[in-house]
């Protein structure tokens, strides 16, 4: 069971960070509401097939005889141009948005974290090169690089996730690198080096676990921004493909009809807005409590 206790030990900074963040966040009513809404959204995503009245409408079924009906007790959010229940589609959209955002952020972490650890852990030329590369990536206005990449890769949700990961990883590299640089000089790392542990071992078994806490917190709070980016790409036709009930795609399609069918654009937009808002609220709070200078006692 040693591995388990080791594992828990490596997680401890993360857990403490989470506990602290959670405590500080929970003190503010706005943030408390946001936390609750996030929990609700996760539940909605998980239980989408049970919650939505017409789950098949979110997959492939169509129902043209009921097209573009306004909201009613039968169709809470009205129907779309093929008579599908928008409520069900928006519900399933939660699942898609959260899922794709998680994957995209995960991919970005996968690229960004090791690079950051290497840059911070090795220092020297490797550090310089990696950090200049992040500079280059960060010098594109956000979203622009994602647009360019997915335009070049071709439209699909997978490519959109990839594009986001490719444009997002430098943020994590920077955070990890900053942490790694300070940890590199700490006692236990020096000790490890003194007994001749190979550098890459040191980076990945000593430095990395100790730098993960802030980056994981940061990444989970980035989900709002990533959801917005995915929706924007889908809106431009560079993301999800029909009939996927992705929110951005729903809004994009609704453009043709929205002057007569206000509900078609409105509800998916509110869904994006609320989701991004709650993540941003938490993210903003976390930034404040993680920043030692604005941290409250």
């Amino acid at each position, binding site marked *: 069971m040693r591995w388990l206790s080791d594992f828990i030990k490596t997680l401890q900074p993360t857990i403490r960070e989470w506990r602290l963040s959670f405590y500080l966040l929970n003190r*503010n009513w706005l943030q408390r509401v946001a936390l609750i809404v996030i929990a609700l959204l996760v539940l909605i995503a998980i239980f989408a097939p049970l919650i939505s009245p017409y789950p098949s409408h979110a997959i492939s079924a169509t129902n043209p005889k009921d097209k573009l009906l306004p909201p009613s007790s039968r169709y809470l959010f009205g129907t779309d141009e093929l008579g599908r229940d928008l409520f069900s589609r928006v519900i399933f959209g939660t699942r898609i948005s959260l899922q794709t955002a998680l994957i995209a952020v995960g991919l970005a972490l996968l690229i960004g974290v090791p690079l950051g650890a290497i840059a911070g852990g090795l220092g020297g030329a490797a550090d310089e090169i990696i950090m*200049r590369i992040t500079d*280059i990536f960060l*010098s594109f206005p956000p979203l*622009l690089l994602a647009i360019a*990449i997915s335009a070049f890769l071709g439209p699909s949700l997978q490519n959109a996730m990839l594009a986001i990961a490719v444009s997002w990883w430098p943020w994590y590299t920077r955070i990890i690198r900053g942490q790694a640089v300070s940890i590199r000089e700490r006692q236990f790392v020096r000790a490890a080096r003194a007994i001749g542990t190979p550098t890459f071992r040191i980076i990945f078994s000593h430095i990395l676990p100790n730098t993960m806490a802030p980056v994981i917190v940061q990444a989970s709070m980035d989900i709002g921004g990533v959801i917005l980016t995915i929706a924007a790409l889908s809106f431009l036709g560079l993301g999800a493909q029909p009939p996927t009930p992705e929110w951005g795609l729903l809004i994009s399609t609704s453009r043709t009809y929205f002057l007569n069918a206000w509900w078609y654009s409105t509800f998916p937009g509110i869904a994006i807005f609320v989701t991004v808002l709650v993540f941003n*609220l938490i993210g903003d709070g976390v930034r404040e409590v993680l*920043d030692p200078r*604005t941290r409250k006692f």
Partner: protein
Amino acid sequence: MKKFILRRLLLGIIVLLGVALLTFFLARVVPSDPAAKWAGPRATPEQIARATIELGLDKPLYVQFGKYLLDLLQGNLGYSLRTRRPITLELQESLPATIELVLISTIAAVFVGIPLGVISAKRKDQLIDHLSRLFSIGVVSLPTFWIGLILQLVFFRVLGLFPMGGQLSTEIKITMDIPKVTGFIMFDSLVTGNFRIFLDALWHIVLPGITIGMYPVGLVARMTRSALLEILNEDYITAARSYGLSERIVLWSYALKNSIGPTSTVVALSIGYTLVNTFLTESIFTWPGIGNYIASAVIGLDYPAIMGVTIFSAFSYVVLNLIADIIIALDPRVRV
């Protein structure tokens, strides 16, 4: 000081080179044949071969990149595959409309965002802070493309207050001579005293302006707030209070001046965001700017055009940040 600026400039140049390399790489890995597209449908293999040479695609990649860099230095972004016109020219044509929008939103960011941030910081953790925080985080969480539609729905469809799109009414455009001094309609009409055109342009820019402006307003408000809160924790603020200076002076005069540095960085940043947001909204508002241009380039798979817009936006973003940094660095008082 000089060293800092030099280093910053050098870094800027390295970054710009990297940006050029990255866009070049992106456009070259695309599984597509620009020559075939250039030659047009039903082109014979000979025509395609000719186009390949014409576009320099037969040369080794590093030669192509070198040529690409040289062209960039001369401000030449290449030719659009769809229209065969110079992309630089096409950008020049669509830029003024976009700049007009970006300027309006930046002005809004400064004149709405900063006061909002100050009020929020002053009343930290009070109701008004929560509300202003909700507002500013709210506006950055709004999908720009969606809020555009909603504004159209409410202010055009329901209330009939504003036009749905366009930069000027067609009638004005046809019946009146649109003055051309700088290419910015609002500015030109104002300096030439054409108030009818100016009002018409103003009336048309309201909805897209609000749509585009929301994000920077929120962003600047947030950043001002956190910059101020940080500054309000500084000793010299506590000291100022201990001298018996009023909160009003401490906040609006003392702390706000201290926050100019971070705030101007954020304004520069927000211009970059805004530029990209125009990609999402200009087509909704039939706004003849760069966003509309890239939207058609994406639809028409006009890689050089996409590359051109990308590199242009990245360049302006880098340069803006550079300027902001240097301005801050030049002011010795801010650098402590």
